[in-house]
């Protein structure tokens, strides 16, 4: 060991002694395959989408907002019920600076720099807009790294790496793995059974935001809820018809396809369509009211005489499962509707309760689904 190496080693050792908890430069790979150098663990984070708190919250349930210095204002609009629950528990949340605007597009880069974050988490949908505005370069120039995460566009492929990435950034790898392991096992509880039993696949019509407008009927193609239905052992009647993730079905097609089940997605949309025909399922929903509105949707012309209505296999589920990393609960719920005998011992509600107890910052509030096959009504 020569003198130079010695001084270098001593310097390193000294540095390590002086600040053992100081952040290190680590290289992480984001969802798009970009390698980004970040000073981790980070203390100041900007959430490019407010609902990323669904992931962040599972890592730091005791104080999910401690690192958040700014976020997009979509949580309160898209998921008002949970927003209220979080706000009650973490009143400080209301003071976090927000930026509004289009769902996909970007933010005020000046505001972002002023908040001096250690990292910015962006959703993959905003990639095109972010790139065309060259935000990455602009932020790099002031030393702010940006990483892409995703739990919506391809939830089953991207939620795991996204969660791991956030875990790495926060220095919470263990918590991230625990959550992912739980999620993975819960998904397998459905997919393993379907794979082993290979049951006949009942046909399912997914009524996207049924009753939101009188234009019948929006649905999902292969992606998102379409994928949940396939995983749950059903056959989506719009698969192969709707080219993109969501689109419109000819109302007559529903009669022609004669689906065995209808799954309406719903939420409390009083802010948008006051007194509308939507089914207000979600945390804290009134089950009797949700049941009544769900029943009313069976009287639309497009539902005439279909098997799902005749046999009361008409269900409603919380619409926001479409962009939540807790979508595996929806998969379990749909699976149990489609194959009640196969999943007799599966209790989706218990799963959701356990998820909240073990991982999430807020307590569980029931009301996420309702079905005309429920006996208690």
């Amino acid at each position: 060991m020569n003198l130079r190496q010695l001084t270098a080693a001593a310097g390193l050792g000294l540095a390590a002694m002086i600040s053992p908890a100081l952040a290190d430069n680590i290289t992480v790979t984001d969802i798009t395959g970009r390698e980004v150098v970040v000073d981790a663990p980070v203390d100041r984070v900007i959430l490019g989408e407010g609902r990323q708190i669904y992931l962040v919250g599972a890592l730091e349930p005791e104080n999910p907002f401690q690192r958040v210095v700014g976020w997009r204002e979509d949580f309160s609009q898209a998921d008002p019920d949970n927003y209220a629950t979080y706000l009650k528990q973490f009143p400080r949340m209301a003071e976090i600076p927000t930026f509004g605007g289009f769902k996909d597009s970007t933010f005020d880069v000046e505001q972002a720099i002023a908040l001096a974050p250690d990292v910015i988490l962006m959703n993959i949908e905003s990639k095109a807009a972010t790139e065309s505005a060259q935000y990455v370069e602009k932020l790099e120039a002031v030393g702010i790294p940006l990483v892409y995460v995703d739990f919506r566009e391809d939830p089953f492929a991207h939620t795991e790496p996204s969660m791991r990435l956030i875990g790495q950034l926060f220095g919470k790898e263990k918590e991230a793995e625990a959550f992912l392991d739980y999620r993975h096992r819960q998904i397998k509880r459905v997919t393993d059974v379907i794979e082993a039993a290979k049951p006949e696949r009942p046909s399912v019509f997914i009524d996207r935001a049924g009753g939101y407008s009188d234009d019948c009927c929006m649905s999902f193609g292969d992606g998102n809820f379409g994928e949940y239905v396939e995983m749950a052992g059903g056959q989506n009647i719009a698969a192969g018809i709707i080219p993109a993730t969501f689109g419109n079905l000819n109302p007559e097609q529903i009669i022609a396809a004669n689906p065995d089940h209808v799954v309406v997605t719903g939420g409390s949309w009083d802010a948008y369509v006051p007194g509308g025909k939507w089914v207000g399922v979600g945390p804290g929903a009134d089950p009797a009211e949700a049941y009544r509105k769900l029943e009313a949707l069976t009287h639309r012309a497009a539902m005439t005489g279909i098997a799902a209505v005749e046999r009361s296999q008409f269900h409603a589920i919380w619409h926001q499962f479409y962009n939540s990393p807790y979508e595996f609960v929806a998969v379990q719920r749909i699976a149990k509707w489609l194959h009640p005998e196969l999943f007799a011992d599966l209790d989706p509600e218990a799963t959701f309760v356990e998820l909240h107890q073990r991982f999430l910052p807020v307590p569980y509030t029931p009301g996420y689904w309702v079905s005309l096959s429920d006996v208690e009504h």
Partner: protein
Amino acid sequence: MSNTNTLSSMASGRGHYRALVRRRQLMLAGFGIALLVSLCVDLALGPSNYSLEQVIRALVAPDSVPVQVQVVLWEIRMPIALMAVVVGAALSVAGAQMQTILNNPLASPFTLGISAGASFGAALALAFGVTLIPAAIEYVVPINAFVVAMLAAFFIHLVSMRRGVTVQTIVLLGIALVFTFNALLALVQFFASQQALAAVVFWTMGSLTKATWGKFWITLAVVVVVLPFFFRRAWALTAMRLGDAKAESFGINIARMRLETMILVSLLSAIPIAFVGTVGFVGLVGPHIARMLIGEDQRFFLPASALSGALILSASSVVSKSLIPGTIFPIGVVTSLVGIPFFISLILSNQRRSW
């Protein structure tokens, strides 16, 4: 000698005129038959693949077929097919009369900002639940669309009544309105939630699936009430196309004529747009086809415009559900994609000057 000459030329002129009228009547009959065929195809086609016999039985004796077939024919296919016909006719006649009174081949509900106003009104309701006039929930969006569309039309009237305003000014003003409402629409979208954004986008693409019997009857009533007004003024409207000075020399009060026609035309375009969303280019292309085939004489031009618009939209309805079976393509997209090439060819082949 010269006397017999005049007589014979008068006779030949009369013969010529009769032949012309006859030719135009045949043309109208042709349009009518084509429309009927298109309507039948629209009723017969659908993802359920019912046999022709079943369709006919469902139409003539609804009780003899299963209830599902009844519902498909009477509650799903029929309102859409009939809505296509009345909306097409209404928009085309609206466009025809706008072109007539403004003496401008580019005038239509689409280019004068009435559609754009309707879209903005609808978006207000869809995104924020804003109701301009309290109403039953299923009519909130159409009523909003209608109110803003009428405000746009009213604004155009106000300005057009000022002294020294030419028809060119009105057309330019319409274009300014289009841009204004498009900007306002973008503003609404900027603040809208994702869910509402999807609804707004779908609304502005136009879709006949919103059709119901109630909406059909309202639209039909407007057409039935407004058309006779135009027929009664057929000669005066024809004279308008000769220019303001000539029309005035025939004793026509052109300012009044313009104002009354504008009011009727606004009704005729705002109501269908409020119900089915933006359906572009029918109001522009429909009357041009009619004019090229039948000429400017309003006695024939008016029904021909109505029929050609109805035919375009009815055929588009068939296309919109056949492109990807099982889904319904937004009809506004179909009419625009078919209408734009036609419109360009119209501009380029202007040597023939049907205008």
